């Protein structure tokens, strides 16, 4: 495997990139002086991969909601024992997560790195599912689902995604439902694995005080050459219009919560998409950040509290501008945010606000390099979207006020927005 070196002089950071003969993409990021080393391998397999086929197949197969997450849990089971048990011999702290568009398996360790890497590379290449172990996992994941059903923040986002999207599979809950996972079988898991866990559909990132050559060689030796497969997701047409402009739910919470989202479409070109997303972050910071009149005046008036958040959330096939807050009147707050956005569409952003926001977003992007875990995760995510760990910093530097002002009307389209609210069960307080 040939490695190419990529440097960023301003940040003083370097990484190495190579593609294994199987198609697995390898990113190695040396961090001198780091006590822990972090390794993460990701597959482009998330909750939105609910209907797919292998290129050449005739029909699309539709799988039960939550299968990617279920698969994540079951990958830890090996024929010769549980992967967690194997890690317990190395001391590594291991975990995994499933998001809308990917599944990642990871560990961090302060010693015994190669032993742990061996475990990771082994179990992701050796699926082992039986009807019995699938059944057992339904109980555990059932409790995980119930835990999330009690989380107001998660329910708020779920409601919002369902309201704003009509067709996009990002609407479906990552973990599925107790009902949907009851249809998962060992056979379905093998099918999913076979389609998505192909080295050509995966990326590994290692970050820490590592020997680059040795790590590359170690990975190279352990990845089996598999015939690359191309997975095709069932296409869908998402209209500009939302599914419902307003949804609400009652839960045991202390104060109502508001979610507001505008759906957006990312450009096909990866770097153009990155530019759009960082510009959106700068816009949000310039209009609604802590150093804005909007934030401070509504904070002082009691319309929002420290829980107010804004974010541009995007992934494979989805992008949205998102607001979340605790507020006594969700509909009123949503209205005030929309009014501020409409004003900005009309008048643009002031240069001072733009510069301040850009600095802040830049500072955040730089701080990514202070954590091997965050950096490793970012390396995989950026690679999946066709960018790299330096793309964000570069895109921020290139973003100017004209680009942001031009983006404003596309970002805040009323017909593509929806509001989600959570109200306390015992009536509204105060």
């Amino acid at each position, binding site marked *: 495997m040939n490695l190419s070196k990529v440097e960023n002089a301003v940040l003083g950071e370097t990484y190495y990139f190579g593609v294994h003969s199987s198609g697995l993409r390898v990113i190695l990021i040396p961090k001198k002086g780091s006590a822990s080393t972090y390794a993460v391998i990701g597959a482009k397999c998330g909750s939105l991969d609910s209907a797919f086929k292998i290129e050449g197949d005739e029909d699309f197969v539709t799988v039960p909601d939550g299968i990617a997450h279920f698969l994540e849990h079951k990958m830890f089971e090996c024929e010769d024992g549980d992967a967690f048990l194997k890690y317990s*011999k190395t001391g590594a702290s291991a975990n995994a997560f499933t998001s809308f568009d990917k599944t990642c398996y990871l560990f961090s360790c302060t010693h015994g790195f190669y032993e742990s890497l061996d475990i990771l590379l082994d179990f992701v290449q050796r699926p082992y599912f039986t009807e019995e172990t699938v059944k057992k996992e339904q109980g555990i994941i059932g*409790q995980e689902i119930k835990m999330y059903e009690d989380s107001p923040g998660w329910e708020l986002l779920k409601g919002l995604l369902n309201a704003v999207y009509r067709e996009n599979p990002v609407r479906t809950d990552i973990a599925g439902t107790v009902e949907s996972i009851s249809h998962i079988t060992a056979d379905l898991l093998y099918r999913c694995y076979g389609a998505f866990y192909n080295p050509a559909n995966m990326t590994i990132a290692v970050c820490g005080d590592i020997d680059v050559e040795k790590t590359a060689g170690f990975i190279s030796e352990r990845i089996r050459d598999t015939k690359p497969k191309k997975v095709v997701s069932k296409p869908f047409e998402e209209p500009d219009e939302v599914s419902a402009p307003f949804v609400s739910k009652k839960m045991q919470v202390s104060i109502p919560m508001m979610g507001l989202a505008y759906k957006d479409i990312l450009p096909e070109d990866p770097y153009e998409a990155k530019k759009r997303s960082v510009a959106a972050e700068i816009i949000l910071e310039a209009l609604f950040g802590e150093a804005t009149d909007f934030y401070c005046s509504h904070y002082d008036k009691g319309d929002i509290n420290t829980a107010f958040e804004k974010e541009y959330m995007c992934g494979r096939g989805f992008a949205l501008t998102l607001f979340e807050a605790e507020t006594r009147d969700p509909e009123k707050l949503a209205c005030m945010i929309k009014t501020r956005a409409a004003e900005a569409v009309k008048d643009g952003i002031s240069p001072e606000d733009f510069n301040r926001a850009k600095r802040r977003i830049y500072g955040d992007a730089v701080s990514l390099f202070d954590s091997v875990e965050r950096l490793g995760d970012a390396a995989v995510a950026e690679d999946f979207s066709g960018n790299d760990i330096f793309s964000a910093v570069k895109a921020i530097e290139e973003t100017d006020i004209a680009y942001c002002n031009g983006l404003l009307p596309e970002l805040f389209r009323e017909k593509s927005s929806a509001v989600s609210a959570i109200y306390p069960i015992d009536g509204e307080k105060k």
Partner: protein
Amino acid sequence: MSDVIHYDAGNGIRVNAVFAERFKRERMSVNIMLPLRAETAAENALLVGVLSHASEKYPDLLSLNRRLADMYGAKLTTNVFKIGEIQVLRISITSIKNRFVQSGEDISRQCLDFLLSLILDPVLEDGAFRQSDVEIEKRNLIDIIEGSINDKRQYANERMIREMCAGENFGVKETGEVSDVEQISGEMLYDAWRRMKETAFFEFFTVGEYSGEEMAKTVSEAFSHVRRTPGEFPGTDVIYVRDKETRFITEEMNVEQAKLAIGLRTGVTAASADYLPLVYANAVFGSGVSSKLFTVVREKLHLCYYCSSRLDVHKGLMLIQSGIDESNYQKALDAITEQLDAVKRGDFTEKDTSAALLSLQNAYRSVEDSPAELESWYLRGLVSGRETAPEETAEQLARYTAEDIVRAAAGIVPDTVYLLKGREAK
């Protein structure tokens, strides 16, 4: 490896410097250490909010936040928490290091001055805090206190501790109670601020490349006009009774999943000889994926998604948590009890102890990779008097044996079992 160096910056004021070149950001904090008491918890907690809302130099939230943004997007975070029966008010500021600032400004020094001005130069009107700031932050604090119900896992744990430690200072909520917050006036807050300024212990931290000596000098100058009269460093009462009836408490709420929170007394603190053996025992029993709680209660019995235990080594407690189906309550409780008994009997293998040791050592050594964790590590060390570095602690741990684990576990006694369950008619 990062060691800590202490500098005396005045009566009860200390600067703790952890030198670390590897981070891109500089971290500076003040930890204000106060006794946790029901009478003063609310006003102390409110102080943090009001002090970080405005200052004499930046008299409203907008100018204050703009100042932060202008210091290359410096970030201010505030935190109120307890270490044993000490109420800690933490204000931290992180910014990019001077060497990444192209203008050549001393951003780190600016951040330090900013931090000091927040605690020492607030906006005052006629010997009181400005009423509008007080009212805004009171509402905010009330939102935070009432908001604890939103996270059911944390709520169950808090409720359990409150029941278990009723009548002890540890049972006091670190943010105070809503009814106390409501009664605070600008004058009362002014008195609390003066008391804090004059009598609290201050633990300043710099994690990064900023000189501790320089920081000590600046801090000491800033406090030179304050008449300091700190008393004793606040402490914690460790309560330990061997033969106590276990208390069972059940509460109902609209929840999908029942939450189980169990409180136990260990009598062992970070200052005890059996501290590390107990930490070791806890790892075998309930922390992490190689522990008995995970491998048996979750993986073998499939009763839950999470089940784990942790120690409070300042108060001498063990806290167990799990999210379960209500119908499995007794089964889960029995299984958890059985796992603890197994540890007490020495019913664990060398594999179990070696997994626990490796996982603890890994966690200790990872502290080096986070400025915030380094600060917390050394702050807790200062409080307990056990000031060993993470690496040294990792090495010390390896000296203990299965016998030490059994001895340390033998003293763990259950105190309170709390269950939060769904309402009957759903």
